[in-house]
């Protein structure tokens, strides 16, 4: 560098002073040590006016920061910088855009930062276009990124929804499986029930068959037993009549016992036979209108002697004109059976009475009752008295010589005629057996149809 200057005191080469480019040199502390006339003119200063001032004086505010944060550190560290864009400040405060090249050199024992500035005008327009294009591109890229972000968010939402849907589907699947399991279980239960029903049907059929076989067997057996028993009875009678020779008093007593036993056994067999026949459905009922007062008139003479003998007060209160739809013979059998029981289980001096009633609201049924003041039946035994081969007090069976089938037969007969037989009793006070019969008189209203 030459020491010669265009102006006195200026440390600038005259050749450089008017070069078509701005020149400036500054020290590390920011003091401008040299500036050519071209730069001074570019910034609206007089030549020599810039020397000694601080570099900030020619920098715009933005450029000052840029200088401090980028430009100076760059020059200080690299030793040079090229094509740095700076906005300089003119004397009138206006901006001057320049491109700057800098080189850091040691001169006269100190560091100098030599800069050249080329003003950019036309070039700046292209740069503006370029910048705008880049800003557009940046904006577009940001938008794309935002869209991508939105899409990602939407995608995440969709994925989340998909997961939720899958979860719901799984739950539904589980519920369906559960229902299926329940259905299978129900089907299994149903199948089992069906099998059980079949089994029950089969068992019931088997039981019915067995019952029928039993009844048939009993009927046959009873018949087979009756024949020899009749023969026994016949021969006893012949012997008692002395046809086979004289009979001693001891022999007569023995023959009496045989005859009694034969009669008891025969009655027993007859009862069994009858019950078996009823239960096997082989009894025919001949239903007709039976006048109950007339019926009692027929029956009373059959029991009155025994009632008197036991000193029982026997009364019959059956109003005339009442009729039942029944099998006359079987009805008579039931009534005699009930009266025999009353006679049997009522101590001497007691009462036996027959009455007839009709329930209000149930005109189609007549209630014929046989009441006694006998020993009575405990409540827990009342249902059993109608079961075959049952007597309330077995010890008395021998004494009363009953078969234990009487009440069972009577109820079966009553039911066979469309009626029933029930009991009310109190221990020590007596029993009342009530025979329910379909009414056939004019108060009965519509005659009840009875199955034979």
């Amino acid at each position: 560098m030459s020491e010669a200057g265009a102006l006195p005191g200026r440390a600038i080469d005259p050749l450089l002073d008017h070069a078509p480019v701005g020149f400036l040199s500054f020290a590390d502390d920011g003091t401008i040590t040299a500036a050519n006339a071209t730069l001074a003119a570019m910034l609206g200063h007089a030549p020599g006016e810039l020397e000694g001032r601080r570099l900030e004086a020619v920098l715009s505010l933005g450029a000052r920061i840029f200088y401090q944060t980028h430009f100076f550190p760059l020059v200080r560290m690299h030793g040079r910088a090229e094509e740095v864009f700076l906005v300089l400040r003119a004397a009138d405060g206006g901006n001057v855009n320049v491109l700057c090249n800098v080189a850091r050199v040691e001169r006269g024992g100190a560091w100098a930062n030599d800069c050249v500035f080329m003003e950019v005008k036309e070039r700046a327009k292209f740069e503006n276009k370029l910048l705008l294009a880049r800003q557009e591109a940046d904006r577009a890229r940001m938008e794309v990124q935002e869209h991508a972000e939105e899409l990602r968010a939407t995608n995440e939402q969709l994925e989340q929804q998909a997961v939720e849907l899958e979860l719901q589907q799984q739950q539904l699947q589980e519920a369906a499986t559960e229902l299926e399991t329940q259905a299978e279980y129900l089907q299994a239960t149903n199948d089992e029930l069906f099998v059980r029903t079949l089994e029950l049907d089969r068992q019931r059929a088997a039981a019915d068959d067995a019952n029928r076989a039993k009844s048939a067997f009993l009927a046959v057996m009873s018949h087979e037993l009756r024949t020899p028993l009749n023969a026994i009875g016949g021969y006893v009678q012949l012997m008692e009549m002395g046809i086979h020779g004289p009979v001693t008093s001891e022999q007569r007593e023995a023959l009496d016992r045989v005859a009694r036993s034969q009669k008891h056994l025969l009655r027993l067999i007859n009862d069994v036979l009858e019950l078996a026949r009823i239960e096997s459905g082989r009894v025919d009922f001949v239903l007709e209108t039976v006048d109950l007062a007339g019926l009692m008139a027929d029956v009373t003479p059959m029991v009155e002697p025994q009632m008197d003998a036991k000193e029982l007060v026997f009364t019959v209160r059956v109003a005339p004109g009442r009729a039942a739809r029944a099998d006359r013979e079987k009805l008579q059998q039931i009534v005699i059976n009930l009266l025999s029981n009353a006679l049997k289980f009522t101590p001497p001096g007691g009462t036996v009475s027959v009455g007839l009633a009709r329930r209000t609201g149930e005109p189609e049924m007549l209630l014929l009752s046989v009441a006694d003041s006998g020993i009575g039946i405990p409540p827990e035994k009342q249902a059993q008295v109608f079961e075959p081969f049952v007597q309330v007090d077995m010890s008395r069976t021998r004494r009363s010589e009953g078969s234990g089938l009487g009440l069972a037969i009577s109820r079966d007969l009553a039911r066979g005629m469309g009626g029933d037989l029930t009991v009310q009793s109190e221990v020590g006070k007596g029993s009342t057996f009530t025979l329910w019969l379909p009414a056939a008189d004019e108060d009965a209203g519509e005659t009840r149809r009875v199955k034979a």
Partner: protein
Amino acid sequence: MVFAHGFGCDQNMWRFVAPAFEDEYKVVLFDYVGSGKSDLMAYDAQRYATLDGYAQDLLDVVHALDLKDVVLVAHSVSSMVAVLAANQEPGRFERLVLIGPSPRYVNDEGYVGGFERADIDGLLEMMDRNYIGWASFLAPAIVKNPGRPELGQELTESFCSTDPVVARRFAEATFLSDNRADVPRVTVPALLLQCSEDMVAPLEVGEYLHREMPGSTLRVMKATGHCPHLSHPEETIELMREYLQPAHAG
């Protein structure tokens, strides 16, 4: 001793100052994410939208090396990053050395920051324009250091290698920030190194900080400009030693 570089450069800007403390201190230099040789993949626009993200960088370094009794030397914008970090974990730091600090660059009612919003916009535009020719900034260069042969030829990396997009965001985070509310909360003693005629951080700003920051010491340097550690490393080192000597000796 941790050195935090300022806006526009990287840890290399400490190369005239840091070696002077290597005998007495464990010296730690680092680049913020987006600067120097940091991993650009780690850059997260959200995280670095404010200075808090940079404060987290600083604390990450302190945690990673499990540093205690740290003397934190911070330049320019890093001063406020240092304030944020020190307020977050005061126990880690023994002293702060803040070079050319400013809590707010834009003027406000009753506050002189040195700039108007339009000036900052001018800076941003200038940065945009310079990125057009950014390649020349990044070009590797062999640095000539006639005065400092020990640094010599070995350094072939470029300086101030900053990603343009990141630098632009850093500039916005820096120059549009307002950390005045964080200043009174500082409990770590701090040395404020204020350059004379620093137009990035004017004297008014240094005085404001000294007034608002408890336990702070303000030293106005002979050095001019905004980068005394580059332009006046000797004075910078001397003032630091002077401040740290009693604390370190005790």
